[in-house]
């Protein structure tokens, strides 16, 4: 079911949350694929469904409040159809997950060594001796200076950067084929961010794992990613190789995002922003182009009634047709393709 180069294929994935007895799709009909040895970035504002997509892939949603439809193919298995037991064999072993806030994602009452060992206990037949050796090796690998001491410590005794390194060590403990990093640098300060990104990049080239990197930091995307998926309001609005996306952004949302990056060389002016905000799950317009409400100066006729993804260049997909007529507010526009 996976094509030769694909590691993970997501097809028509919809994740809906139950709010007051009706289901609202937070991830709406998303299809994408991750290749071996590739960093796929998923970008978008808060509330666009990035994290929901990631947590759906590892099956973290409980069945009481969430409905998942569509397929997630990995290694000829459909993750969307697995039961808890089958998922537990896969999680940690084949898919590693790095959380946003390392402090809350580490158990405050377990020593670092125990937390790293957890995955090894379930997925390997290592003896206790081998496990503790592997823990030290991993800590060393993620650049922790004194692995022996850190292994005995508790999460509150470490700095933010060290905690995130530990998180990465945990995710890597069983050499997963896929690493999902959900905003791995958001909770860290800028110097540490760079170190963590470098570390991820090095580890990725070493292990040849595929990484899904979820972020809203376009700087991170430019530095890390091979391919970028832009999500808005639960949908993929644009997908392109990283260079193509930065040089030739098409969808109004992507262009607005890029436009709102502060420019260091222009000294004047106010920061550019995107008008309005991401509509909440309940008020999300399900008909027509979902971004249209935030670019009201664009004529309604330029949107498709049922926006589809169009391939406008090899590997470059854009949803809706409004990009052909898009211009920033106050600029002359229209017709520039």
């Amino acid at each position, binding site marked *: 079911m996976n094509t030769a180069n694909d590691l993970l294929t997501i097809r028509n994935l919809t994740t809906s949350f139950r709010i007051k007895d009706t289901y609202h799709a937070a991830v709406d009909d998303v299809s994408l694929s991750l290749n071996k040895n590739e960093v796929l970035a998923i970008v978008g504002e808060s509330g666009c469904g990035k994290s929901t997509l990631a947590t759906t892939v590892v099956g973290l949603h*409980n069945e009481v409040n969430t409905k998942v439809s569509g397929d997630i193919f990995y290694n000829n298995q459909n993750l969307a159809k697995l039961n808890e037991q089958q998922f537990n064999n896969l999680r940690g*072993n084949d898919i590693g997950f790095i959380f946003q806030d390392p402090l809350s994602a580490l158990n405050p009452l*377990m020593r670092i060594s125990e937390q790293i060992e957890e995955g090894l206990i379930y997925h390997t037949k290592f003896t206790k001796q081998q496990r503790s050796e592997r823990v030290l090796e991993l800590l060393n690998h993620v650049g922790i200076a004194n692995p022996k001491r850190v292994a005995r410590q508790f999460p509150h005794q470490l700095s933010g950067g060290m905690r995130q390194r530990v998180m990465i060590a945990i995710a890597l403990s069983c050499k997963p084929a896929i690493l999902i990093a959900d905003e791995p640098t958001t909770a860290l300060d800028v110097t540490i961010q760079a170190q963590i990104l470098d570390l991820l990049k090095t580890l990725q080239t070493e292990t040849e794992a595929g990484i899904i990197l979820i972020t809203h930091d376009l700087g991170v995307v430019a530095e890390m990613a091979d391919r970028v998926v832009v999500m808005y309001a639960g949908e993929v609005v644009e997908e392109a190789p990283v260079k193509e996306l930065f040089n030739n952004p098409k969808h109004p949302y992507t262009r607005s995002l890029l436009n709102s990056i502060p420019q260091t060389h222009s000294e004047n002016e106010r920061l550019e922003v995107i008008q309005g905000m991401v509509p909440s799950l309940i008020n999300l317009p399900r008909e027509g182009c979902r971004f249209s409400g935030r670019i009201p100066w664009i004529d309604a006729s330029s949107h498709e009634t049922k926006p589809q993804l169009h391939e406008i260049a090899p590997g470059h997909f854009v949803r809706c047709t409004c990009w052909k007529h898009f211009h920033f507010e106050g600029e002359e526009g229209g017709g520039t393709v």
Partner: protein
Amino acid sequence: MEQKNDVVKVESTPPTGIQVVIREFRKDKLALFSFIGITLLIIAILIMSAFMNQDEILRIKLLERFTEPGVNGYILGADEAGRDMYGQLIIGAKNSILIAIAITLIANALGIALGIIMGYYGGFIDNLFMRIIDFLMTLPTLMIIIVLVTIIPKYGVFELILILSAFQWISTARLVRSKALSEGRRDYVSASKTMGTSDFAIMFKGILPNLSSLLIVELTLNFAGNVGIETGLSFLGFGLPPSTPSLGTLVSYATNPVVLSTKWWIWLPASLLILVLMLGINYVGQALRRAADAKQRLG
């Protein structure tokens, strides 16, 4: 190289776990005193009772009836059947304490397990058990216990422990459930899941230790309560049979007006022991409760 190793040793960490408890007890002398006192008292009672001959103590000697304390080698006198009060007090205290410990352990083990399962899974399981608990809480516990005690044919220590445990787990389950509900939605639980950890391991190896501060307090105060409920039942005559001395049966001699007004040595020592035990355990429990909550700490 050697110098380097010395430098590494220097680090300051906030006090954790047992250190916080020790600091709290240092500040609260009453709790420290209670803790040492209660521990020594319980150990002394257990050791002394091991060397006592229960049959000898419980043998009826009518000639020694109502012997006053200090006479004929009766340290605390004798009751209306001439039985040594001192021996009865020690054995009674041992029985009461062991029964309270057993009830506390059984009831809390059940309550904690159910509470964590309810809080962690939520949804249907949670609703189901919460309704059952709501129902059980509306029942008049004392009356049901009394009825059960009367209708059970072969009634002894073991049966009493089971009956009391059957009603004690409810409050623990509610308490643990509310905490597990919030704890189970923390990121580290999801993180643990992404490593392929089974639900069972997450509940009892991940979440349970994070509830420990709450549970230690709950166990301690429950223990005091269980000493109370056993003695209370025995006093009313629905606890242990008279052949098994306990603090409650000893106090219940005071229901006889003659004993109450003139033979103080029969009921006073047991009453004082109950008072000391309950107060001491409560002081310890309160110190532990403060230690568990950073806002209330004294130390």
